[in-house]
């Protein structure tokens, strides 16, 4: 019940296209949903995050869509660029006295020029 399921595992998009990565969760105690971007050999970098009382959040080319009733959320990358090629992780924060993030398995995005 603490899992976060992420899909697809890998994604290839043409430059200028829209990249969409989906995540689903079961535990309704999750109350914060960040997305991280990771380049090879680097630690994950916080990209954008949303709370369940908001249905959408946009920062530049990155948008999170959140569907509380379906327990799903997704990352949309508009006008995808080769520099966006990286691994993306969704995560969910477990409320309570623990600070752990539960991560999805990751999506490797390749944006072709």
């Amino acid at each position, binding site marked *: 019940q603490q899992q976060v399921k992420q899909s697809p595992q890998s994604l290839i998009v043409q430059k200028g296209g829209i990249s969409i990565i989906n995540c689903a969760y079961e535990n309704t105690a999750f109350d914060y949903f960040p997305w991280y971007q990771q380049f090879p050999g680097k630690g994950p970098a916080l990209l954008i995050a949303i709370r369940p009382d908001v249905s959408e959040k946009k920062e530049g080319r990155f948008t999170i869509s959140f569907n509380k009733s379906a327990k799903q959320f997704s990352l949309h990358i508009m006008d995808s660029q080769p520099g966006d090629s990286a691994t993306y992780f969704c995560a969910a*924060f477990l409320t309570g006295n*623990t*600070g*752990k993030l539960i991560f999805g398995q990751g999506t490797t995005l390749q944006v072709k020029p």
Partner: protein
Amino acid sequence: GAGVSQSPSNKVTEKGKDVELRCDPISGHTALYWYRQRLGQGLEFLIYFQGNSAPDKSGLPSDRFSAERTGESVSTLTIQRTQQEDSAVYLCASSLAWGYEQYFGPGTRLTVT
């Protein structure tokens, strides 16, 4: 300002040896987290510190793993009698307070031969 730093960046050790991994969090961040990332996998929570105490050690895989934090700053993760399955990237993150915006270091790549 300076981000989370970790040392060493790479560590190769023989099976059965002990290793110590170090994390320097962002100055002023009271919460510190350790995660493990196996090749091609998502991040697996290990332990969380609030100040110098560890309210959640639930992710430590076995009693060979331990961690401490001193002075509400540096943390060390110790793995005793290393096994080949311990090979992974060990990531440290910190946040201003518990939860939410966690900032990751570059990780320590541990290889057990």
